[in-house]
């Protein structure tokens, strides 16, 4: 019960302090939206608009989640208020879980922003929503862990943003968000297969445009393996970096 009170209040504070602040909402919304518009204008007539949706959703989650953790963790570490959380009589895992749950929820909500907008433009029936939700959750979890790994490794917020961009932008192109993976040059394909987002996006493709590279179960399995590895890496780094 005590742990739950602490957990819930950490999450609530982050939502109030960070997630509902205009600059962060804009990161999550404006960026994916402008990207959508750009794609729409560029591709007018050539492709089916719905084909853009999986990539947009994946991108919204990736950017929303990773940028939030750069703030909720790196910023608090920097201002030393994070020490208060480390001093609380709750386990490191509880603390980390509370911190990333906020980012995961934020990512999930972000994912549906493009869905709502697309809903005005096109007919969204025929989408397998259960798989969509599953994919969104899995992408959000991996992105959050990736963001956490970055946040733990750096000291300044801008470093966190720079380092995550180093991962994020290549992922936009390598993970099949806007360029199908079978059209990637052969040399880049192995890299693509090493990135968890590839499998999440593939699941979205399967559910939304019914065209996927892997089977859904295979993707889920791979993503879960990634989650376990990332979780382990984060834990190890946290123990090393947070308690000096």
């Amino acid at each position, binding site marked *: 019960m005590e742990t739950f*009170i*602490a957990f819930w209040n950490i999450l609530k504070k982050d939502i109030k302090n960070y997630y509902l602040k205009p600059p962060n909402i804009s990161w999550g919304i404006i960026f994916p939206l402008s990207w959508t518009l750009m794609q729409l204008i560029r591709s007018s007539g050539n492709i089916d608009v719905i084909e853009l949706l999986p990539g947009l959703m994946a991108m919204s989650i990736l950017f929303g989640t990773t940028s939030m953790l750069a703030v909720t963790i790196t910023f608090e570490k920097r201002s030393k208020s994070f*020490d208060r959380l480390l001093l609380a*009589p*709750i386990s490191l895992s509880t603390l980390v879980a509370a911190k990333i749950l906020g980012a995961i929820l934020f990512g999930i909500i972000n994912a549906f922003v493009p869905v709502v907008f697309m809903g005005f433009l096109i007919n969204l029936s025929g989408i397998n929503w259960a798989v969509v939700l599953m994919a969104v959750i899995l992408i959000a979890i991996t992105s959050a862990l990736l963001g956490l790994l970055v946040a733990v490794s750096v000291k300044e917020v801008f470093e966190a943003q720079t380092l995550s961009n180093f991962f994020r932008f290549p992922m936009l192109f390598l993970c099949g968000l806007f360029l199908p993976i079978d059209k990637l040059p052969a040399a880049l394909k192995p890299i693509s297969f090493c990135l968890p987002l590839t499998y999440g996006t593939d699941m979205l493709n399967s559910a939304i445009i019914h065209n996927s590279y892997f089977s859904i179960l295979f993707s889920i399995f791979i993503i879960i393996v990634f989650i376990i590895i990332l979780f382990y890496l984060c834990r190890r780094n946290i123990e090393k970096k947070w308690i000096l």
Partner: protein
Amino acid sequence: MQKNVEIVKVTNLKKLYGDLPAVNGISFSIKEGEILGLLGPNGAGKTSTINMMIGLSRPSSGQIMIDGIDAIKDIKKVQRIIGVVPDENNLYGEMSGFDNLCFCASLYGMGKEEREKQAKELLKQFGLTKAADRPFGTYSKGMKRKLTIAAGIIHNPKILFLDEPTTGIDVESTRQIRELILNLKKQGTTILMTTHYIEEAERTCDRIAFMVRGEIVKVGTVRELMENIDHEYKIKLQLDNCLEELKVELENKFPSYRIEVLAKNSCLIISKEQVPLSPILQVLDEKGVSVYEAKGIKPSLEDVFVRITGIDATKLEKVGR
């Protein structure tokens, strides 16, 4: 309230940052209900010591026992019963004073009603009720310090760690904070505080540990620390004349005294033994020098500190409070 139980026991504690021994094998203990002061200049290793005891940093070697719990193995258990006031005011700038306190209480699992009641109570006690709904970031330095202290004690810790509670705070706020610390002691809280103010240590702490360059060079009550050194007796004289020319003559006449001319009209007579005044007064009278005032000067804790540590006391800040 002080009992004879050692509630905190630190043995051979060491912390290396690279090659630098920030804390170099210190040992000390704190009795239940006692206030122990760690007094030392910047960089002595005070904060490093506290950080190891509260679980923000890992000792390179040594042991820490807190209330019968091994603090290195079981820090989360220890964290339940301790409160920490860090040297920096690290509450959340965008949250109000009230919300900050409630949040800190929630980290210890306190229910909503209880934490709001405690928060209101503390805000009142610290004279911050009016500022309760303002963001912490808009507080003045003194207000920030007080709220940070309030946040450290909102869950009624058994043992409190105070890192420089009054640095950079005005006289009135310092007095309030000192009273608060003494009140906590009355309620039975055990306190470890660090400071570089000799006077603060002297007024607040039951025992003081002098810390220099990562080592504790001496621990004791103020009285024990004072007794420990062979101090000199000093008498300060106020005269109507300068003593410069008479210095040698006086020293020849009273070979066991040392004379220090301070300012134009005053001097210091220093001796290993008590100084009987009348022979001196007589000599001065013969020379036509009048004495208006004679004052015995007690050795101060500052002298003791300087003597024991060999460190210039100006390295510690001096404030008249």
